[in-house]
């Protein structure tokens, strides 16, 4: 029962992180609309890295999931 809960926690953290990245990027974009292209690139890279954390968690924790 612990493993799914842990995965849920990981998802929670990653969701918060993704939201913060999105919020930061939106803030920046609204302040400087001319920098949207660069911000989007940086945002996507950041999203990819945060997402990776969750994927790693899933792969590590998958073995512990109840069958």
């Amino acid at each position: 029962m612990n493993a799914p809960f842990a995965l849920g926690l990981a998802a929670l953290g990653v969701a918060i992180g993704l939201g913060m990245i999105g919020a930061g990027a939106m803030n920046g974009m609204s302040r400087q609309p001319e920098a949207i292209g660069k911000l989007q690139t940086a945002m996507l890279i950041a999203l990819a890295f945060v997402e990776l954390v969750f994927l790693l968690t899933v792969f590590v924790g998958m073995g512990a999931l109840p069958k």
Partner: protein
Amino acid sequence: MANDIEKKPSSSTTAFKIIIGITLMLAGGYLNSQHTFKSIEEPLAAQGIPLTFGNTISVIGVFLILFPVLNSFFFAPLMTAINERNRELENTFSEAESLRKEMGDMKSAYEKRISDTEAEAREKIQAQLKEAQDLRTQLMADAATAKEHMIAQAQEEISREKDKIMNELRVEVVNLALGATEKLIGENVNNETNKRLVQEFIEKAEVPSK
């Protein structure tokens, strides 16, 4: 590794890569069928990571083939077509731009010529006007002088005529006076002395009439 992404890969390196790619594909399939990596794969699969290294090797081979083949089959022609088209468009644009510039030049030159002509015409008209005015003033002055001259001449003539007539009148008066006196006195007074006397008298009498 994937060193094949040059603009012009030589055919020998391309062939070399394709051969290596095919070899890798076959090797991947063979190793997979022999379960060579079973000792690594099974623990991973138990962890939930279904990784097959045979696939990896084969796919590397596939990509080694794919890079040069797709590049020479499609990407190189696509890029040349796009670049050529862009260059053509650029040429067209620059041509149009130069044509427009030329037209603008021509238009401005034409406008300049028109304005020049206008100015010239205006100048000419002004000059003609001025000349005419000059002529007018000159003519008027001429006329005025001629008038004055004529007036003076006429006055002179009048006075001369008057003088002549006066003289004639005087002579006539003298003669009449003498004739009348002769008849009155009955003797000839028509000598020099009498004539002078009458003349003097008339001249004296004439003064107030003048």
